[in-house]
């Protein structure tokens, strides 16, 4: 018998999609049975009480978690989100229900053994509930009590060689796509870069020194599988400079219908015979391709490297060899001034270990943002407030037409005093000599 009846939540057990309610109920049961005889460090009822509390939310349509709560581990300004419920008498198991953010490995690969070690720790010292993964990328452990936080951290670092992730006005846990591990499109080593920069900037990740949060994300190519352009203050995206490599025989095979288009991604419907003109040439955003006499050509200097043609014919087309990254900056969610996507700052930058060129850009931006950013102002907001020009100045990047989709439509142009002959100081009497009052 469940501790709290959950008639509403029970309705989430039907339907094909994996039911978190079924999972939680099962986990609660196992927790009570405790077959491994774990010396549970937080209430045995934690999951039951979570379900009960959630049922209450499902009934009255509001959350029952109290506002914030500052808890954490010594010396770190992040990695733990404090949480207390507003019905501790009825649901004592979740009176404290803090989150621990565990830093994930680049690309979210795991060995089962290691995962199981982590599960053991979390069953022992926490609720056993997790998010795989948090939206930023961390392994999220949901629900433990304040006294367990240091214990968990100690075990993680001492036994599992494993650190916490970010929260607060810190560098947040960087994330990347699967990249070179398994993707033929990767133009940069997103996973390695992510790992390297995460380690390089551990201090920024654990100790708040920024105006607000700051996120890195690394996409291996413009397909954007980690959505860096939408959700990171600093988005690094692989790209290339030279020709797309074309295997003309394979192109013919696509045209002949021997290879399924787009790696078979559209196999669920009959879209008719593959039509290279309609499906590739005409959809190219710059119309820089042509297919004539059985030969595909691409006018590289007009190519946007949008990936479309390569995505459609991955066995015929390959990204170029002169690879590097584009850097875009400033993405963020809507609070406060409306959402932003990242804006192109560096069209092309080398991206080889140890990534010095990229670090230089990062550090220049941080120095400036830490100086000029207001409290709770994301980089994108600082950019909007002070102008894109400013970030060019502090990074020493010359303005380029690539920085804009279009030049300004208003002529409200600021000049620096030294750009205008004579500067700002003028003499009204001189002026009046030519212009009577």
């Amino acid at each position, binding site marked *: 018998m469940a501790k709290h009846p959950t008639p509403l939540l029970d309705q989430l057990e039907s339907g094909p999609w994996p039911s978190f309610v079924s999972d939680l109920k099962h986990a609660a049961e196992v927790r009570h049975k405790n077959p491994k005889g774990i010396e549970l460090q937080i209430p045995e009822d934690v999951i039951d009480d979570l379900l009960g509390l959630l049922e209450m939310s499902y009934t009255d349509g509001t959350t029952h978690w109290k506002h914030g709560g500052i808890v954490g581990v010594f010396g770190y300004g992040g990695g733990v989100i404090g949480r207390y419920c507003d019905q501790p008498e009825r649901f004592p198991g979740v009176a404290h229900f803090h989150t621990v953010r565990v830093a994930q490995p*680049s690309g979210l690969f795991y060995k089962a053994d290691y995962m199981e070690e982590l599960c053991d720790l979390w069953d022992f010292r926490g609720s056993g509930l997790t998010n795989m993964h948090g939206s930023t990328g961390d392994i999220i452990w949901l629900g433990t009590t304040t006294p367990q936080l240091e214990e968990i951290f100690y075990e993680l670092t001492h036994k599992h060689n494993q650190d916490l992730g970010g929260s607060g006005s810190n560098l947040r846990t960087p994330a990347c796509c699967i990249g070179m591990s398994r993707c033929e499109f990767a133009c940069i080593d997103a996973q390695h870069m992510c790992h390297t920069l995460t380690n390089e900037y551990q201090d920024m990740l654990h100790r708040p020194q920024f105006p607000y949060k700051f996120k890195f994300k690394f996409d291996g190519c413009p397909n954007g599988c980690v959505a860096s352009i939408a959700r990171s203050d600093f988005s690094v995206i692989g790209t290339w400079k030279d020709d797309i490599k074309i295997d003309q025989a394979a192109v013919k095979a696509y045209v002949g219908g021997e290879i399924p288009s787009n790696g078979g991604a559209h196999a669920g419907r009959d879209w008719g015979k593959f039509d290279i003109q309609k499906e590739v040439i005409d959809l190219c955003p710059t119309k820089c391709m042509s297919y004539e006499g059985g030969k595909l050509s691409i006018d590289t200097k007009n190519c946007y490297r949008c990936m479309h043609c390569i995505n459609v014919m991955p066995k015929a087309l390959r990204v170029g060899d002169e690879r590097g990254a584009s850097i875009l900056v400033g993405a963020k969610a809507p609070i406060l001034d409306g959402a932003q996507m990242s804006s192109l700052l560096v069209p092309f930058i080398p991206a080889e270990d140890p990534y010095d060129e990229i670090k230089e850009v990062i550090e220049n931006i941080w120095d400036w943002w830490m100086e000029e950013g207001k409290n709770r102002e994301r980089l994108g907001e600082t950019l909007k407030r002070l102008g894109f020009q400013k970030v060019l100045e502090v990074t020493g990047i010359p303005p380029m037409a690539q920085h804009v989709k279009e030049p300004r439509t208003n002529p409200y142009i600021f000049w620096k005093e030294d750009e205008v002959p004579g500067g700002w100081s003028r003499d009204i009497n001189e002026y009046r000599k030519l212009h009577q009052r």
Partner: protein
Amino acid sequence: MAFVSSGYNPAKPMENRISDIGPRFFKEFLPPVLEKNYGKWVSHEILEPGLLVHEAESGDKVYTVRVGSARLVSTEYIREACAIAKQYCDGYLRWTTRNNIEFMTPSLETAKALKADLNSRKFDKGSFKFPVGGTGASVSNIVHTQGWVHCHTPATDASGTVKIIMDELFDDFTNMRMPAIVRVAVACCLNMCGACHCSDVAVVGYHRKPPLIDHEYLDNLCEIPLAIASCPTGALKPGKTDLPDGRKVNTILVNNERCMYCGNCYTMCPAMPLASGEGDGIVLMVGGKVSNRISMPKFSKVVVAYIPNEPPRWPTLTKMVKHIVEVYAANAQKYERLGEWAERIGWEKFFELCDLEFTHHCIDDFRDPAYYTWRQSTQFKFTKHIEA
């Protein structure tokens, strides 16, 4: 039960302290075939929904089986996934950036057996544990957030809405009949931790009432100037009020007309809750994308300003999402993302085809950029909205 120390000494927190070691190095965790062919992949193919093959320069192949997962998962569930990984994949597994789990093996035969096994595992009430799918032109798993399970600011639940939407769209998770990938995201408040702002379909919880002021405690709990400064619309000002017991206290006064229910003040001050069972609900946004493929990334647009919270199964929400996805599937061209389709046909046509009411709430009135979303042209299509 008894407290068990990890070895940590609260009296000397710095003793033996290890810190700043970062995450584990990912290469420890790479399946051997991936490590061997790192950076040397040449192509891929989706053999069946949820089953991919990647081929390396060396001629090596790796087969990947992708499965959906609730994201809010227990260690029991993770252990089961680990056991499967051990049985079929030498003990390696990974998660995708959208909360799916991937099992990889160099053998097609193993992959097929694995797929069958995964699809056979169910929870006791019948839902799949590891439904195979989410590849290619499908509706993949939903990126989402905490909701009522853990957060203090939600206006809706996340795990529940994800469950019911995925139930509704399940066939399209295991199938690849969409014109292009369809990315759904759920965020339970305007903070949008799910980064809904660039999703094909974005389900966003939001409040619709100005904050309720707990005058009695406000001055103790909050820094009044900070809370006031946090309001983007200038709806707050300092004030005094008389409590029922006659005490006069400093507090914050809300100009309800100027409030847009963003919850920024509540983030700064717990004495200003916004949540309301009758006010809160969902705004549905569509047409965003992240990839740079063909068109540049796009923001999602508000197409239904309000859908009530109807737990546990949010029937209005699921119906609307399903309907939009179906109309899109029926009308868009191959490779065309939802937003690209809507822009090609024009948003007026989108509203007509999807049978959506266009309300004043859909017109932007937030700051100067709003102007650029109005229509400065005589170019428009006549739809049934004009007859109205």
